[in-house]
């Protein structure tokens, strides 16, 4: 069924699909103990674009997102089968170091979770443990450029030593994005990054995501279909643990192939 859902690509809109896929998932199944949370997911995620995962609560979109940087490893009962490749490298390979993987696949969480340390330390932590900076000045440069990329530098440049937890919610979330991009990941996973923010802060994050698309492959889980429509090039719809439909955002929202997608988008269930 998934194979059927997959292409049927409209060449006019699917410019992204022409690119090489950055992340490739084949027959991914996730079990939480007895519960079969994700069933046979196959998807190609193109490089330097935004992919949105939508679907009702409990459909497995976050679960799949957390498979991509193996965050599910921290849950003792979770079991993942199938294959996920980033740049043709199997990330579930036994010889792969999960810590290095997570440096390549950054993550931004639903609730802003800055470390209870200074703004500077929040951003500098990742580069420091990975030995990215050769000198203090080098580290300063990484912190500054990361904060600039996250669009936060102008607001906090005078108070880099203030605690990160003292910022507003939107600023905290951009700090978390700066922290994620400071280690130079190739893929950034965002798990409902705006669900705890007000509309203005949300708009800023969405702008930021659009800018970051130039340099990073972004995968975003969202409950807001407008947000998916605004920021993503491709959209995947999950329902009850299966990937129902995946395609260019415009296609998915205007002419969905699957009845369930249509029902969800038009607000019949969710």
């Amino acid at each position: 069924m998934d194979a059927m859902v997959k292409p049927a690509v409209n060449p006019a809109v699917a410019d992204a699909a022409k690119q090489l896929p950055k992340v490739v998932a084949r027959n991914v199944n996730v079990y939480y103990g007895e519960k079969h949370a994700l069933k046979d997911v196959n998807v190609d995620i193109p490089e330097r674009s935004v992919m949105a995962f939508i679907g009702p609560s409990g459909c497995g979109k976050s679960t799949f997102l957390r498979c991509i940087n193996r965050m599910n490893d921290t849950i003792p009962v979770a079991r993942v089968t199938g294959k996920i490749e980033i740049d043709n490298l199997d990330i579930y390979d036994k010889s792969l170091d999960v810590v290095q993987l997570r440096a390549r696949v950054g993550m931004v969480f639903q609730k802003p979770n800055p470390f209870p340390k200074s703004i500077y330390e929040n951003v500098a932590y990742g580069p420091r443990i990975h030995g990215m900076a050769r000198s203090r000045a080098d580290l300063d440069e990484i912190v500054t450029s990361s904060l600039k990329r996250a669009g936060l530098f102008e607001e906090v440049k005078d108070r880099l030593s203030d605690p990160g937890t003292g910022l507003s919610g939107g600023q905290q979330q951009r700090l978390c994005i700066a922290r994620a991009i400071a280690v130079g990941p190739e893929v950034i996973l965002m798990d409902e990054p705006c669900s705890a923010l007000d509309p203005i802060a949300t708009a800023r994050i969405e702008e930021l995501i659009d800018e970051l698309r130039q340099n990073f492959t972004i995968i975003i889980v969202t409950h807001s279909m407008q947000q998916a429509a605004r920021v993503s090039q491709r959209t995947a719809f999950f329902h009850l643990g299966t990937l129902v439909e995946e395609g260019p955002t415009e296609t998915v929202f205007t002419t969905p192939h699957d009845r369930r997608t249509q029902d969800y988008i038009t607000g019949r269930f969710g």
Partner: protein
Amino acid sequence: MTDMTLSGIRTIDLGTEAAKARVKARYRAESRFRFYGLAAIGITAIFLVVVLTDIIVKGLPAFTQNVLQLRVNIAASEIDPKGTRNPADIRAGDFQALVRDALRAEFPDAKDRASRRQLDNILSSGASDYLRERVVSDPSLIGQTITVPVLISSDSDLYFKGVGTNVIQTPGRGTATPSATSGDVEIKSTSNDFANALASVKQTLTTQARNEAREAERLQGFALRAETRKKELETELAAAKSANNAARVAVLEPQLAAATDQATSLSGRVKELRDDVAALEQRYKNPTASEPITDHMPSLLIALNGGVVKVTEVTDHSVKGETLIALTSDNPAAPGAWQIVNYQTPEGSRRLNDRVVTWLNNLKDKGLIQSQFNWRFFSSGDSREPELAGIRGALVGSALTLFVTLVLCLPLGVAGAIYLEEFAPKNWWTEIIEVNINNLAAVPSIVFGLLGLAVFLNFFGLPRSAPVVGGLVLALLVLPTIIIASRAALKAVPPSIKEAALGVGASHQQAIFHHVLPLAMPGIMTGTIIGMAHALGETAPLLMIGMVAFIVETPTAITDASTVLPVQIFLWSDLPEIGFQARTAAAIMVLLAFLFVMNGTAIILRRRFERRW
């Protein structure tokens, strides 16, 4: 579903009597509950205040000590007869004799052995300690006369702190003329100065008479019964004799003899008592006749012409007695120039006799007694003499023991907690360990003491009474507390922090040691301090490993024999001397102070570093 009929929506009618009653009942229940809460807190507060007040009132006197400022002649003949000025020789000198001589010089008329011994007993057995140190450090003092503070015995010290007797002085109204200056003296006054004393003696006579009369009454009952029994036996014996029952006669005769004896002795005693009562009444009825003063009555003394006379017999206008301190002359003393002194506690019911109390008052009047802060309490070890006993040994012992406990507990406890909370696989095996740790926290502490005795002392052969063993035992005791507190602190750190660290590519261990552990540290510290405070107050397990021994020396290493503060309190509380009661309370105050400081630190740490998410 749709064809099911729904009943109308019910509303609450707030106007009905029932509704009003319900509201009232709710208010009543709430105020009742508030009252219970307040009452519980109030009662607890009262208990706390009573206990603390009691301890402080009892303990405060131990923080001061009365010393005697004596002019001591440091005679070379006693200290350094060979003239070597060698510190070791000087140290061996009989400084106590010097101090004794100096005190005897204050009371030259205490010449006989008994009174000299009493005089010596005013001094503590450690009276010369300070003098010895001073002379050893400065031998040039030998041959000089210097004023040094001298420690007095616990009983003398307590007398100045108000334990002993009240002293009431009234100036004499008439002119008093002593018949001699020493030995047995009669003092005549031109006024009826001693009428009050005589009256109170007579008053005690009536009390005595009443008691004796009651006793006579009681014995009279027994006497009558014995008489009846005797009569019965006599008739029985007569009957047996007339019946020629020889066996019965042989049984009855000794019984009759015993009954006769008893009846005679009882009625004799009754007669004695009654005579005594009559005599007492006679004495009471004659208000001017002289009366002896015994040691069951408050003591009466006369201070005049620089001396003191202890009264043994009193009349209205004159007293007879013996001199405790010789008078300077037998000249008549003008009204107001002499004193009638009353020691209200009878001599028989206090530890210091009239002579010693008089000497002490004399020393006090000369300004030789000074009350000082009792540094010795903090600077000396245990002793059998209350005035020499201090808590230094126990404090150092406690510190060494706690040091051992902390060094063992903190790394083990925190490492164990981190492993169990963050790394250990969740299976039945870790489950069992967890349950056991929680149960271990509830095991009675004496069990740990027995364990220490069996394992550390008997199996490993570690030294008895040593802080190292105490520390090991207390570490076992405190470990569960620290593990539980540390796990709770680790659990309280939100998982989002760990996820954030993992998200930027930190390893599990880095995430925990860089982010989770620092955030959990205040909680871990709080748990550790509270655990340590618990260990500081622990007594029972340390008794089992021999830390209850009487140890004078301050320990210098963790393998030295020592005791700890709570055990010291336990030991002192067992001693009968009154001087130790105050020291027990004072040691409790020190222990409580340490506990307050430790718990206060824990609270401050929690407040300072507490972080809310």
